[in-house]
């Protein structure tokens, strides 16, 4: 762009650098609040896991590790494509940017589809907490607690994925019109930070929920 991105400067900032600083600090602060949000839910998990170690380990065996692993790989790959999106925007490669954003969206959607399949499976197996919960084995109440925490944590995570995909769709629309340039690609960077964060949350959830009690 000939204007060096100046048309993106909001009226209340002195220059683009200040605006960019504000945006990235804002995003990091937002991610801090997200850490605390997931932190509250994770603390609930930690307390009950410590109290009902065996029951949680047994209940965890009802989760599908293969699908979980597949999803982990999908999500890590999407982080790579997201990082490449940020790079392409900064390097003024519009076509790569469009491609990488699309790939990230696609991978994110695959994750959600697999997650949805897992949820449906749990539903058929009556492992969704509530009045229809049936658990084959001892410690049914504790197992129900495990599944409550499982659905809450993965549910909130999935909600974050949906929001992330929405943001990606918006970026994609604008990227096709050439909105992002080397001089100004703040939105791509910010969504990138968010996407990596959501990815990292899963990196914690996967072992905590799927892999406990499998070390033996």
């Amino acid at each position, binding site marked *: 762009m000939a204007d060096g991105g100046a048309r993106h400067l*909001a*009226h*209340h*900032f002195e220059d683009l650098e*200040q605006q960019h*600083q*504000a945006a990235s*600090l*804002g995003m990091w*602060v*937002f991610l*801090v*609040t*997200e850490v*605390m*949000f*997931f*932190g*509250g*839910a994770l*603390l*609930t998990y930690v*307390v*009950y896991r410590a*109290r*009902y170690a065996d029951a949680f380990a047994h209940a965890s065996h009802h989760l599908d590790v293969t699908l979980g692993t597949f999803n982990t790989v999908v999500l890590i790959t999407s982080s790579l494509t997201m990082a490449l999106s940020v790079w392409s925007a900064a390097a003024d490669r519009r076509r790569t940017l469009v491609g990488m954003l699309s790939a990230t969206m696609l991978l994110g959607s695959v994750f959600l589809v697999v997650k949805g399949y897992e949820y449906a499976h749990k539903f058929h197996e009556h492992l969704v*907490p*509530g*009045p229809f919960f049936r658990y084959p084995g001892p410690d049914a*109440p*504790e197992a*129900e*607690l495990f599944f*409550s*925490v499982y659905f*809450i944590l993965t549910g909130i995570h999935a909600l974050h994925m949906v929001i992330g995909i929405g943001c990606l769709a918006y970026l994609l629309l604008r990227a096709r019109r050439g909105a992002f340039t080397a001089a100004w690609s703040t939105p791509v960077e910010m969504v990138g930070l968010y996407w990596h964060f959501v990815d990292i949350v899963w990196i914690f959830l996967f072992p905590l929920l799927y892999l406990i009690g499998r070390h033996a």
Partner: protein
Amino acid sequence: MSVPTRKADYLNVDYGVRSWLFTTDHKRIALLYLIVITIMFAIGGLFALAIRLELLTPAGELLQADTYNKFFTMHGVIMVFFFLIPSIPAVLGNFLVPMMIGARDLAFPRLNLLSWYVLVVGALFALWAMVTGGVDTGWTFYTPYSSTASHTNVIPMALGVFITGFSSILTGLNFIVTIHTMRAPGLTWFRLPLFIWAHYATSVIMILGTPVIAITVALVGIERAFRVGIFDPALGGDPILFQHLFWFYSHPAVYIMILPSMGVISELVTCFSRKRIFGYTFVAASSLLIAVFGFLVWGHHMFVAGQSAYASFIFSFLSMVVAIPSAVKVFNWTATLYRGSIAWDAPMLFALGFIGLFTIGGLTGIFLATLGIDVHVHDTYFVVAHFHYIMVGGAIMAYMGGLHFWWPKMTGRLYPEWIARIAGIVIFLGFNLTFFPQFVLGYLGMPRRYHVYPDEFQVLNVLSTAGASILGVGYLLPLVYLTWSLRYGPAAGPNPWGATGLEWQTPSPPPPENFTQAPEVRDAYDYDTGLAPLPEGARG
């Protein structure tokens, strides 16, 4: 410029409802907040009035038990989440943070507007929960009562609190980014007004604490809606875990209410004594210390809840430590007056009232942090009296002082000074008469949230109710004369108090982007240099 043009200010630059509802000007958003929280304060106040009337007699003739329980719950929820938490930050902070640091707006103006809408939506949920039957869990939403036993509208109310939380998160985020990145050139951290330090510390609590209360009330809502056992002991859950999560936010939330007040007081005390603040660094650092230590003391709400005795020892110890920065502030404010040039204007009277009441509120906090005493007074009127000294005697007093101090800046008008002083005195007296007897009641053993009570507590309850009616009148007065001043008040001029803050270097009301020329940056409290003289005709 000899051509007399109409000076555009943020109020007259644009007209019509749309220009307000879609504004991104932080000053207009501050006024939007002012309207909403004033309405919420009025509603919460009416509940308080009904509670006090009910407690006139021991037998509980006025209200049914259920109605009474709903009233104190809604009084608490409204006052805490929809009035106290947004009061100073969202009204005065919103208006002043950018102006005090010489910025044109907050870093994210649209986010700022969004956070107002979020508050409104949360408030609507709360009001909906109220008019369709109310909630009776207490503002603390303790499980398993809230998640299984209560038959009231817990879910909409929890949703209201959940949503409102995001308003406070977004406001905190906006302040932190603004203070970090948008200070005027030359305005270094240690030249900032203490109001800014206080809001910075508040924002840290908002972004770290609020998400935890959000997930916590969401868990209660989920537990209730889907009948799963997260905190329900019948299903393997732990109700004490809820209390830990709840107080992890809700104790720091007390500091969300009081830290901004402390910021306001630092501005008032310096301006009306025309002195540099005594011990700037200590006052600034104490705000941050309070914010940090505030996160480490939540367990002092649970000394008799069944947490381990060792945990109680640690939380008691840390609660003692967090009292020190507050004490340091009180001493520094007092020392600031020494050899000052003290004016008795209304905002100053509110500030002095704050210092006195906050001193009592803070010292009684030490009683509650002391294990052996807390066992006796926990969940009694002693606690009720203590936190009203902090939140009403402290936070609302400072809010009133701040509102009177910056009212000329916000509206461009002066209010009648003498009646404002009377209002301040009425509020001070009414407050003490309302809440001081409650300390005695509490030590005598009257539990809180009691709809009927033994006869021997009646005398003190009658005193308290009498005080509440005086307090009510005290709060109505400013509503009347401040509204009156909007139309009939004399023009204020840019700096009616001769204050040094950057916000006083621009016309009142300020132009849309705050400053027509870059403000002259200097130390926050340069009162001893004669750079901010009192205006013509100021009282000697």
